[in-house]
């Protein structure tokens, strides 16, 4: 009896040791780039390019930020990024929720076609559309360096439609019928019954959309070349590869782009996870 429990604890301890022997070094490797990002952002360029290994943060963050602000009006681009991401998220949640709702709640002519086209084209690479999008927006409509160009084209993203559709379809449909019998208009059933009940899904979707817009690089790179309309990643990217820029400044920018998202990630981890796994459930 005693021997039995003893060997059981021993097995457990051995497994635990093995597990941590794998996980702890891996975790350190994985955290390393993030840590270095912070370290670099606090160092003068002389420190970054010094012959010694530097693993401890210094105190040069503010100076670095000033250098970055001088290289590119970073605060302005940061504001652009926030503005674009917020408006994009709000619009995208609205559009995809309404579409997802229609696909769940109503039987209508063309329903199968709409759903079929969305599903069939879901996994097509974005690169297939980027050239025509660019031709349309930049050349045909001359919308380069406008908010519309930055915000509207990426709204095509259909993952949200499927995510919201799933959320609505998991609700008891009787709820909507009950409201309908009570004389509530369809718009109010949508806004007062369905949307409040979909709050967790909307939260998850919003986080994913915000993050996608925040980190979006290629599209803003194509349509926002004017420094006053650049988003932060584009501004930062434009510095990479040139020698006469402050690398400490670039890293300060990288930290300013990354840390807020990490805070969101930690604070809203549950919604975050369900947003990322949303694609897998369809």
């Amino acid at each position, binding site marked *: 009896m005693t021997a039995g429990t003893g060997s059981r604890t021993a097995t457990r301890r051995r497994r635990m040791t093995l597990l941590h022997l794998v996980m702890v070094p891996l975790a350190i490797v994985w955290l390393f780039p993030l840590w270095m990002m912070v370290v670099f952002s606090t160092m003068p360029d002389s420190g970054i390019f010094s012959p010694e290994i530097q693993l401890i943060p210094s105190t040069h963050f503010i100076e670095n930020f000033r250098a970055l602000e001088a290289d590119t009006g970073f605060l302005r681009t940061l504001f652009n990024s926030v503005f674009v991401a917020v408006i994009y998220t709000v619009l995208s949640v609205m559009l995809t929720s309404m579409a997802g709702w229609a696909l769940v709640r109503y039987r209508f002519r063309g329903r199968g076609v709409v759903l079929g086209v969305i599903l069939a084209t879901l996994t097509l690479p974005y690169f*297939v*559309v980027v050239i025509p999008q660019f031709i349309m927006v930049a050349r045909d409509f001359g919308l380069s360096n406008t908010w519309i160009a930055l915000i509207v084209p990426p709204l095509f993203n259909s993952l949200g439609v499927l995510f919201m559709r799933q959320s609505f379809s998991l609700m008891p449909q009787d709820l909507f019928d009950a409201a309908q019998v009570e004389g509530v208009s369809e718009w109010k059933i949508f806004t007062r019954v369905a949307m409040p009940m979909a709050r967790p899904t909307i939260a998850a979707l919003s986080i994913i959309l915000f993050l996608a817009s925040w980190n979006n690089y290629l599209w803003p790179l194509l349509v926002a070349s004017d420094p006053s309309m650049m988003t932060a990643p584009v501004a930062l990217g434009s510095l990479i590869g040139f020698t006469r820029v402050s690398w400490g400044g670039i890293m300060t920018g990288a930290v300013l782009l990354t840390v807020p998202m990490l805070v969101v990630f930690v604070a809203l981890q549950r919604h975050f996870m369900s947003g990322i796994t949303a694609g*897998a459930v369809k």
Partner: protein
Amino acid sequence: MKQRTGTAYGFLSPYLIVFAAFWIWPILYSFYLSFLFTRRQPWTWNPRVTWGRLVQDPEFFNALKNTLLILVVQVPVMIALAVLLAVLLNSTLLKARGIMRFAFFAPVVVGEVAYAAVFRLMFNADFGVINKLIEGVGLPAVSWFSDPTAAMALIIMAVTWRWAGYNAIIILSGLQSIPDDVYEAATLDRVSPVKQFFYITLPLLRPIIVFCVVLSVIGTMQLFAEPFLITNRGGPGGATETLGLFLYRQGFTVLNFGYASAVAYTIAALAVVISLLNLWLGRDAT
């Protein structure tokens, strides 16, 4: 349910307009564009300078070769790592699980530009911390940006760092949907944990793993920002030039829309074919 075509389209139309204008129409238009000579106005029908050029363009084949190399090496390594991470992160024996999760999942929120910048500095041949560490253990420094093989390895490491956690999140959610009693029953049947992994966990995870592979394939086919920013526009000498980067150059540097569209359609076709192949390989063997 009542038939309500009008109401339904009332709710649908805002999205459908955007969807049609910026997704469906470009998909079709891009196909048409891929047959046009677009370097001189007005654009003229001339598939020879797009598709005809594509099949014999060494630059294209170089990008294709690099992309497929990344696909064949990076995707399996990353998915295997993601499965391992998911299983280990799910273990009840793991301490400091919050920090562990943070370590692997945090890269998911890091933007391409930010992490490209860090990797460039870390792997800098002369001052980079990685080379200092390598030299510290007595090995020769690696010229990460001028040696073609090392540059490719760097891209693969960077992409793996960025996306392994993302896939692990998806696989972890799949793991957590496997009911505990399956494992309890297996334990009572004296099945070892390793065998439980290979005979219970992996088969049940197969659809999710296939999904992750498909996502990764599509992502790899459009790999752009990493070689653009980390290895300086696909350097050295095109050694890390990918299809995504090649398309960007043709489309937006040279402004050869017709040819770039042909490249875009090739990327799409390859992604679809490889995805279907995966789905077919991952289908239920019933």
